């Protein structure tokens, strides 16, 4: 089959949100909408558009960009949680779940039962899950609480258990979001060790981060995203340079505009971009 030689094959990928539905409209509003005028393109917000890249086995892709650039949406699409509305997305191998599990716990049942439940949700075979359970419990390190309802857990305990379940199986394609620093110092050290372990075993990695240094360090390719599109794609150092340059230029432009405003005697507004990139 063509295309299967890539670990990840993304072609002209687009994911859009229907603004009318996300706004939690009521039936009445939607009916009026439907009767009044047909669906128009301005109802949609394209969180991703024309995203196009391929990753070969053994490669590691860094994804850079300001907040709201579509980085997380890209990860969700790669994880299979969001379906493409445009283009195609092909992945060979088992994709990791997002490592931010924990919000999906069933509060009234015990941690042990949640391990079984979430394992079943992830589609892990029952036998495999049963073998993994002791090591998951050991890694989460929440002591006798494992048999207490999850609602009695502290947020740190929940995060630890969630991370422990999510990383129990080494995936072929590892999706990493940098927002991972959970728990105390000791757990953070252990979780970083485990991520390093997963990284070494994965066939391909996608790392979303704001830390420009780690992109240069861990990745052999990087893309820069903005407004849901890929702005630049290339060597990590080149991408990082391009990004830095862009941020510099924007700052300069903003400073210029502000100077103009000040000259015209207008008050200086707080820019959203400024807030986002800070």
């Amino acid at each position, binding site marked *: 089959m063509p295309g299967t030689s890539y670990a990840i094959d993304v*072609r*002209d990928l*687009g994911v*859009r*949100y*229907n603004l009318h*539905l*996300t706004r*939690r*409209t*009521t*039936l*009445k509003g*939607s*009916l009026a*909408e*439907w009767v009044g005028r047909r*669906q128009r393109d301005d109802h*949609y917000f394209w969180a991703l558009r*024309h995203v*196009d890249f391929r990753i070969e086995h053994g490669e590691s892709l860094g994804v850079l960009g300001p907040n709201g650039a579509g980085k997380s949406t890209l990860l*969700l699409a790669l*994880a*299979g*949680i*969001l*379906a*493409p*509305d*445009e*283009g*195609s997305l092909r992945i060979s191998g088992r994709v990791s*779940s*997002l490592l*931010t*599990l924990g*919000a*999906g716990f*069933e509060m*009234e*049942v015990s941690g042990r*039962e949640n391990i*079984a*439940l*979430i394992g*079943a*949700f*992830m*589609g892990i075979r*029952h036998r495999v899950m049963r073998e993994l359970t002791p090591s998951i419990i050991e890694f989460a390190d929440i002591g006798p609480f494992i048999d207490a*309802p999850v609602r009695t857990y502290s947020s740190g305990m929940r995060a630890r258990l969630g991370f422990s379940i999510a990383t129990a199986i080494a995936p072929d394609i590892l999706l990493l979001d940098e927002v991972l620093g959970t728990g105390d110092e000791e757990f953070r050290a252990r979780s970083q060790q485990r991520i390093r372990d997963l990284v070494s075993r994965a066939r391909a990695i996608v790392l979303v981060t704001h830390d420009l240094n780690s992109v240069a360090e861990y990745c052999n390719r990087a893309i820069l995203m903005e407004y849901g599109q890929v702005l630049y794609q290339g060597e990590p150092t080149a991408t990082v340079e391009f990004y830095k340059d862009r941020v510099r230029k924007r700052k300069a432009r903003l400073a210029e505009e502000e100077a103009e405003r000040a000259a015209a005697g207008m008050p200086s507004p707080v820019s959203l971009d400024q807030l986002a990139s800070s």
Partner: protein
Amino acid sequence: MLPFRLPMTTPARVAPDARPAVAQRPPGFRELFLRLDGVRLVLRGLQDLRTRVRLLQYLVGTDLKRTHADTVIGQLWWLIDPFFSMAIYSILVTVVFQRSIPDAPLFLFATILPWQWFQTSLLDATTSVTARGNLIRQIQFPKLVLPASSTLAGTITFGFGLLSLAVLYLVYPGRISPWLLTLPLIAAVQYAFTLALAIFFSGVNAFYRDIQNLLRHATRIWFYMSPAIYSVTALKGSIFGVVLGLNPFTYILTSYRNIAYYGTSPDWVGLSAVLLLSLVLLAFSIWVFKRIETGFAKIL
């Protein structure tokens, strides 16, 4: 069709310069493909359920645990709940409405118990997708298991309710008949009907939360429009009787009452019709659900 067009139903557009390899199909081919696609979606939906038996099992377990968590007598409530509603309706019918029905508690219990199974299953299932929004945004799994497990949990509760029906027969031993053995058949028809509605409404409720509120009232009205606390014979020939004739629960509840109270056979013809309707509805709702399920992660 649903009163909205979902983003994922539009065919993927391909940028002209990026992939000339994917050619446009001729329209006739497309039509045919879409028609096949409907069948395929339904089959895939059924496969979703078949391959996730273990997940269904766990979900039913947690559902049941959650309903009576932190109660002193716990699961005993499953036996006591139906008794209370039966007692209330017995008082309502015999004392307030002054209807003299022989062995009224059994007359009412035979229909109220299955009705409550339907109502709680449907209402629980309707919110089953929205309640798991967090998980849907984190793990990719077949969402059909959510309404399915809610209705299955309701079925277990109904099973316990049947135990209290058995207890009631200690008071009315003369009403026991061999026709009681056909109860699983009637329950199977009812389950197919319930599941069809549950799947449909759980999916649509993800987009319009109005559904869960609407259904709460609709089921209450539906209850009084069904022969649960009265019998159909009392209304034969009237306009209301015609309405009853269109209500699937007329045949279901009448069948239950026949076997549990009158000791006669179920309404086979009526049940067959309801079964047929349920299977058509089930295929339709699985199709709708499979089409909109990819959108859940975006809106929850």
